[in-house]
């Protein structure tokens, strides 16, 4: 297992885990969020092929428009 940081919280993931795996675990739909890995926004079409490394800092930022 590797350890990554997701929205400030440590999380264990299998070494072959992708962004798609993570957001699926978190029950977040890809079209309602933006994902940053180590400060860089990852394009949605790379979610299945972008694998994590130990220590990666992930931010899952939700779209919201309420006011």
């Amino acid at each position, binding site marked *: 297992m590797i350890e990554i940081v997701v929205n400030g919280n440590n999380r264990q993931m299998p070494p072959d885990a992708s962004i798609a795996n993570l957001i699926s675990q978190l029950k977040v739909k890809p*079209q*309602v969020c933006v994902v940053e890995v180590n400060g860089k926004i990852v394009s949605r079409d790379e979610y299945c092929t972008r694998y994590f490394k130990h220590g990666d800092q992930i931010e899952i930022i939700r*779209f919201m*428009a*309420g*006011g």
Partner: protein
Amino acid sequence: MQRYSRQIILPEIGEKGQEKLLNAKVLVVGLGGLGSPVAVYLAGAGVGTLGLLDSDAVELSNLNRQVIFSTEDIGKKKAAAAAQRLKRLNPDIKINEYVLRLGQDNIRGIISDYDIVVDCSDNFPTRYLANDACVLAKKPLVHGAIYQFEGQVTVIKPGQGPCYRCLFAEPPPPGSIPSCQEAGALGAIAGIIGMIQATEAIKLILGVGQPLIGKLLVFNALEMSFRKVDIPQNKKCSVCA
């Protein structure tokens, strides 16, 4: 000046800062849960000209969070009811009412009269429109949004950092994000986010502190956490690049 004495004491404000506030012109887009505290605190601080923009009328279901209104305002246009309340709070400031929806046809003319725009709207088309128009007009934009128990704030200062589209390049598919009407909204959450927006607008006017330029402040009320996330500037951004 006695009205502002408690903030004039602050070394970061003083009489010079108060003059800046009195000379400032701020447009509040949307008078809902966010726009209510934004307008009240900016009026209280003595922001000299406030534009209040909303096409809607006050409804009973607004009153859990839209603290600028009272039960007797139900049915009145929000811009007019809010203006009435703010004139009682601070008769020294100028208030411009706009009972309309922002669109491609009117936004440039309206924002040209203001120094800062505060986005308190409740829908994606208005948020993208406000971002794009402010970037093109080089107007600072204080963005705030809420969803259930969460909120976000950022400051877009054209030429000095990323814009809304650098983070959220395109709107989500229609219907994929429920509105407050569908998903619910707790009044205090709107209050917290709105007050942070008002604080950021005041900091921009005064030129003090570090505004949330290039940072997204993410608030989660259930965890009671605030986190600052870096927003990278998109060198290929369709609006600000």
